[in-house]
């Protein structure tokens, strides 16, 4: 008998639509795997089993009644716990938020996925208030990497990485302010799509840095990420940065190939500060794509400005909580947020100006290049609790530097997918970023789909027995 937890979202939706299995059977199989193993993994902070089974039964009833099913019929998924789920307090990884009243309504993206007949299984662990690249959490415990439970998932969407890699669900939703979809995708061996800034609605999700926050899917195939994106796209006036512009579906692009694309590997900044694994994986992907090279302009200044904006806007968002409940924060988060709140306004204004100038330089660069290839993280998954790592002879903090290569692209809102590479003999994966011009998610999935069909990149469900 097929183990339903090993299937992709596409295969699960097909099976439910054709009657090969029921949505209830799919939900029950995934809930059973969560019950058996999540105690060791730490992916979930809430499992919404009752809601999930009711939703699955509704899908099965639609099929029995001859009602057309949505594109994600019966596909289980889970969301980072900064998404509102009606009836639950939105934790955003914080003990403080346990005191918040339950959400009255689902987040906008959950509503869209419900309309596509996907089935929500619960809320996922994350770094406190999303200010994190490790997946560790002082209040709820760490999310553990399913491929090696002694190692980090990466963050801040740590539970999102863990749940998809563990086979608890085929697809999760995360948020990405500086790399929080792409870092856990890299460390957990998943495809992670951070769409263009303003593409997917953030309505009814807990913010971190309003200027930089994105939401998107993490999954075990390019097609699954594309299918979830397709179900979630569309303008939403409830999100002030949502853009009302055409958003063609990505599904048809996954198999479109890379013919005609001008592809280049990012050099200089992206050649340094990494272990051999990152360099080798990027070279493997770039070589397979016949990529040339390109130097990204102003990249160190851009990454630094992203850091400044993040700590300042984050600090200001949490200022009242820092005044009244400082002791209830994770100390690692708290001290950075306080420092951010104290930063002079002049430096923040400068960071915004750097952002605009860097965006303009990148727009010019994209006149000659369609796709940029870069490492996603400087290393494979560090050990839980590890505070520093050696990058090309420099001992630097893990927490700040896991996002070294992701920050420059989210800073200007470019669409990016991290694709998972497993080099020969290695038990742990590492990601490579595929970056395209703004609003060109189609290019990103064309390249990812090509690499996946060529067998160079792919996700694995971790063995947990």
């Amino acid at each position, binding site marked *: 008998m097929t183990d339903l937890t090993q299937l992709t979202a596409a295969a699960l939706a097909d099976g439910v639509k054709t009657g090969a299995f029921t949505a209830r059977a799919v939900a029950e199989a995934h809930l059973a795997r969560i019950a058996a193993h999540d105690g060791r993994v730490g992916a979930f902070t809430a499992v919404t089993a009752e809601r999930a089974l009711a939703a699955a039964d509704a899908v099965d009833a639609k099929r029995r009644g001859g009602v057309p099913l949505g594109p994600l019929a019966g596909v289980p998924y889970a969301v980072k716990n900064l998404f509102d789920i009606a009836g639950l307090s939105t934790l955003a990884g914080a003990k403080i938020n346990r005191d918040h009243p339950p959400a009255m309504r689902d987040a906008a993206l959950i509503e869209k996925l419900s309309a596509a007949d996907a089935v929500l299984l619960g809320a996922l662990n994350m770094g406190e208030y999303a200010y994190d690249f490790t997946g560790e959490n002082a209040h709820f415990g760490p999310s553990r990497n399913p491929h090696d439970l002694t190692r980090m998932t990466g963050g801040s969407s740590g539970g999102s990485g863990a749940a998809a890699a563990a086979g608890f669900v085929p697809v999760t939703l995360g948020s990405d302010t500086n790399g929080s979809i792409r870092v856990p995708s890299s460390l957990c061996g998943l495809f992670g799509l951070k769409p263009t800034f303003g593409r997917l609605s953030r309505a009814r999700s807990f913010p971190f840095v309003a*200027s930089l926050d994105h939401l998107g899917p993490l999954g075990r195939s390019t097609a699954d990420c594309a299918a979830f994106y397709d179900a979630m796209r569309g303008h939403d006036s409830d999100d*002030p*940065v949502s853009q009302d512009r055409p958003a063609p579906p990505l599904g048809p692009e996954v198999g479109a190939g890379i013919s005609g694309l001008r592809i280049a590997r990012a050099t200089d900044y992206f050649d340094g500060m990494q272990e051999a694994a990152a360099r080798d994986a990027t070279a493997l992907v770039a070589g397979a794509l016949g990529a040339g090279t390109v130097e990204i302009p*102003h990249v*160190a*200044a851009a*990454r*630094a*400005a992203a*850091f*400044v904006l993040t*700590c300042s806007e984050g600090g200001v968002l949490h*200022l009242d909580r*820092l*005044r009244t409940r*400082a*002791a209830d924060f994770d*100390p*690692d988060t*708290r*001290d*950075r947020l*306080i*420092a*951010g*709140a*104290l*930063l002079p306004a002049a*430096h923040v*204004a*400068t*960071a*915004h*100006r*750097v*952002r*605009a*100038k*860097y*965006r303009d330089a990148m727009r010019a660069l994209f006149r000659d290049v369609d796709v940029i290839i870069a490492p996603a993280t400087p290393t494979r998954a560090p050990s839980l609790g590890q505070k520093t790592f050696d990058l090309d002879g420099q001992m630097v903090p893990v927490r*700040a530097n896991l996002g070294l290569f992701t920050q420059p692209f989210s800073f200007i809102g470019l669409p990016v997918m991290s694709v998972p590479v497993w080099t020969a003999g290695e038990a742990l994966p590492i990601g490579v970023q595929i970056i395209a011009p703004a609003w060109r998610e189609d290019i990103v999935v064309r390249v990812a789909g090509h690499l996946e069909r060529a067998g160079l990149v792919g996700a694995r469900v971790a063995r947990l027995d």
Partner: protein
Amino acid sequence: MPSSELTAEVAERYIDAVAPLLGLAVAPVCRPGVVLNLQIAMRLVRIAETLDLEDHDEPAAVFEA
């Protein structure tokens, strides 16, 4: 542009001067971490400031009337 590192002593004085303006009481247990993070942030401010900005390089903050 100031080029020197932010020393712990200057950071401490800055916290003492500015935190009250924000209504923040920085507890002793937080101070070493806040000082360290201010130093890191200022290091990155200096890197961001290496980009030459002209008068017409406007901020990228989003607002639509």
